[in-house]
């Protein structure tokens, strides 16, 4: 039986059904490097229980997972590891930046820290906070589910020339500019 009906009804519905199934069976890969890991554990444990959202099953192999949780500070020496973990994941894949360190580098504006993992890999959901509260994480998780349901992926935004998944208007945005904007 072909999936394409003349109206397209069947094929769009089957994509919806697939995405619905995907969003409630998130196999996450926790890439835990620093203090945010504690908050990640408390979110994953029974009190807050990410299993309610179908995301309770961490896989410690990138090849079996479809959401990469980057939890904690990523330094320059870790960056190639993160990139190769991301590259090993099968499509479709999503990335969650957990904590300000992974979002922007946080307060580690120094020689060793990557200033936001979106300078290496495309990120779908940013969860700021140092560390983010579990409610915050669950909110991010639900936003990710919405994104999965809609079939959206930041990966498609990745700009191979600029080597970044950052939106174009943010690529040139520097911290100096940011301070100027705040002051003016």
């Amino acid at each position, binding site marked *: 039986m072909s999936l394409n009906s003349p109206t397209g009804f069947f094929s769009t519905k089957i994509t919806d059904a697939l995405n619905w199934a995907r969003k409630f069976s998130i196999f996450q890969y926790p890439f835990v490097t620093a203090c945010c890991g504690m908050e990640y554990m408390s979110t994953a444990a029974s009190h807050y229980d990410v299993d309610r959202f179908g995301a309770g099953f961490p896989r410690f192999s990138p090849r079996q997972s479809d959401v990469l949780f980057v939890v904690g500070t990523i330094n*320059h020496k870790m960056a190639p590891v993160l990139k190769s973990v991301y590259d090993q994941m099968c499509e479709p894949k999503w990335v969650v930046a957990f904590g300000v360190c992974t979002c922007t580098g946080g307060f580690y*504006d120094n*020689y*060793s820290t*990557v200033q936001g993992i979106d300078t*290496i890999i495309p990120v779908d959901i940013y969860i700021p906070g140092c560390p983010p509260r579990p409610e915050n994480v669950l909110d991010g998780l639900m936003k990710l589910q919405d994104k999965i349901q809609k079939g959206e992926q930041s990966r498609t935004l990745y700009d191979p020339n600029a080597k970044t998944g950052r939106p174009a208007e943010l*690529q040139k945005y*520097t*911290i100096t500019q940011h301070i100027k904007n705040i002051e003016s």
Partner: protein
Amino acid sequence: MTPLEKVQEKFGKDIVETHAFRGDETAVIRPASLLAVAKFLKDTPELDFNYLMDLTAVDYLFFAGGRIQKEFRFEVVCHFYSIKHNHRLRLKVQVDDREAPDGRKHPEVDSLTSLWASADWYEREVWDMYGIRFKGHPNLKRILMYEEFVGHALRKDYPFDKRQPLIGPQN
């Protein structure tokens, strides 16, 4: 006799400065005598400093916001401990960027790896962070930063927010 007094007795002319406070003893010595003093500390039975606890460095550029000018730039600090006698001693060596031997860019001091194996990684860290070379070190390469890293990150003239070319964004 405390370890510091023993060192003073034997190497009086090599000692620049000493400091002692309730068993916390420090000797600042000339760079050329570092290896000899260290060997003395390790091999003398009454001293028996068998444990090199730490080896690190200090950059005195812009010290106290530039108000204090020292005539040297770096200080290499070694902490020794004797497990047998339960006493400690701190050795300091002052080195300068300017007086680097044979036209090299980096200051150089003698390596302690021949006496304490643990000096290996400490010295690699000091090389990585401060750019101080250790003469006689078997494998002096960066330990924390990657090989392509340019400069030495804990030097006071290294901009704290400088970005390296390997990973952006550039500034």
